[in-house]
């Protein structure tokens, strides 16, 4: 109890002993955390968008009118066995025509579908995929069937997803690079803040060691001071996020309208926890580096 009081008190005093330095590192940490939060949000948004699109991704294999039912069922079974495929639906010639009629009733501009006696539409297999990354491969495999008498043509439309995946990849790579640099800056500032705090208390530290305080007793106040910088930085960053979230959401609403992306009900809580956890980790890490190098011996 007394230990805790001492350690917490020393950490608190340490933070306020040099307020300018502590504030500077708090804001540096806050800036890094904002960046971190931004990447978390963007990553989550893009992920939702990708999975939304993925659920709609279909490959369509058009079938020859001459194909035997057994051949079609055989092909369907083969495609279904692919782990990247979530379902395969057989659309008969009649189904296709019925769909076209339905569509034309909804869309007056297309005009009525006239009965021309024969059904020109081919039967098809509609393939839903589990993951968009695999669409190219599955499409290639289906294309290989063209010419064997069953499949006449394969249509895939994964360009949107491909682009989105590229954005995600670029963003996470660039994000990691930028975040990494910011992290280094934040660490550097914390290490220096704690170094100054250690210097300010060097007499006290010397006596502590000489009267038999353990190394942890000497170190903990500084590590907590680092975590305090992290916690304050997290508070500043989260407050800024809150303040900005309204206008930013409004600005994004157009984008969100096109892609009805939900970040999930618990996302705000997870984001706050992630930011705070990361902040404490960075604060404690920076302080530990500092304390280890400046309290050696």
């Amino acid at each position: 109890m007394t230990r805790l009081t001492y350690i917490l008190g020393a950490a608190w005093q340490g933070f306020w002993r040099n307020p300018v330095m502590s504030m500077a590192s708090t804001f540096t940490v806050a800036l890094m955390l904002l960046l971190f939060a931004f990447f978390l949000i963007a990553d989550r948004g893009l992920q939702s968008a990708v999975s939304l699109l993925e659920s709609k991704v279909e490959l369509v294999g058009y079938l020859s009118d001459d194909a035997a039912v057994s051949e079609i069922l055989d092909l369907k079974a083969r495609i279904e066995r692919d782990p990247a495929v979530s379902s395969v639906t057989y659309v008969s010639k009649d189904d296709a025509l019925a769909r076209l009629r339905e569509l034309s009733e909804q869309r007056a501009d297309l005009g009525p579908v006239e009965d021309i006696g024969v059904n020109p539409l081919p039967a098809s297999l509609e393939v839903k995929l589990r993951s968009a990354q695999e669409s190219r491969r599955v499409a290639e495999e289906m294309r290989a069937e063209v010419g064997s008498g069953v499949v006449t043509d394969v249509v895939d439309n994964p360009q949107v997803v491909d682009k989105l995946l590229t954005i995600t990849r670029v963003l996470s790579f660039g994000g990691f690079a930028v975040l990494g640099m910011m992290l280094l800056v934040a660490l550097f500032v914390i290490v220096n803040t704690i170094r100054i705090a250690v210097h300010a208390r060097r007499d006290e530290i010397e006596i502590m060691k000489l009267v038999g305080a353990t190394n942890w007793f000497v170190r903990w106040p500084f590590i907590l001071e680092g975590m305090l910088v992290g916690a304050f930085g997290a508070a500043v960053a989260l407050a800024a996020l809150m303040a900005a979230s309204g206008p930013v959401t409004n600005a994004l609403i157009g984008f969100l309208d096109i892609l009805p992306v939900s970040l999930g009900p618990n996302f705000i809580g997870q984001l706050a926890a992630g930011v705070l956890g990361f902040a404490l980790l960075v604060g404690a890490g920076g302080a530990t580096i500092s304390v280890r190098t400046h309290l050696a011996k």
Partner: protein
Amino acid sequence: MGKGNDLISLEDVSKRYPNGTYALRDIDLHIEAGEFVFAVGSSGAGKSTLNRLLIREELSTNGRVVVDGQDVGRMTPGKVPHLRRKVGIVFQDFKLLQTKTVYENVAFALVVTGHGHRVIREETERALALVGLTPRRRHFPRELSGGEQQRTAIARALVMRPKILVADEPTGNLDPVTTWEIIKLLVRVNEMGTTVLIATHNAEIVNALRRRVIHLDHGRIIRDEREGLYAA
């Protein structure tokens, strides 16, 4: 000076500082529990260095330093705090914290070694009473006389109830009356069971007390007498 129940024993100990100075050479010294020992010798003879070896503030270059059964040079870093709690040191320069009161300076040793509120209060009051500083408890070091600062430093060393009390030049720059008060205090501490080692230049007190005297000269023990005088 038997081997079996030595509280402190140095065997063939030398200390060479990184700059090349030999502060101690081939020291053989055995101190039993309950002894009262003066270490004398001119400035630079190695008295403070000897003290530093006892709490592993410095490591010996050669030989073995054993305190209360533990090899000081070989102990793991984790054991050092426990050694230092057993050996209370009054430093030549006091090492008081200027921003803390007398009470806080004395309590500091207990606080940073993780003691509870009640122990801290009771033991600090006891130590302050022992050195006669209870009325000065709220003063800051700069508001104290030299002798009072000295007694604060002694109280801080005693508050941990150490087995060994090492006082480095505890009467330097003090008037004769204050000097005697400090010495009487250290004798009382010794009578209560603590082993006391005093490094001093003060011939008068050494000659008056007739206790064991270890005479250092250029890092060597040139004399070790049971009821010695300052000079041979």
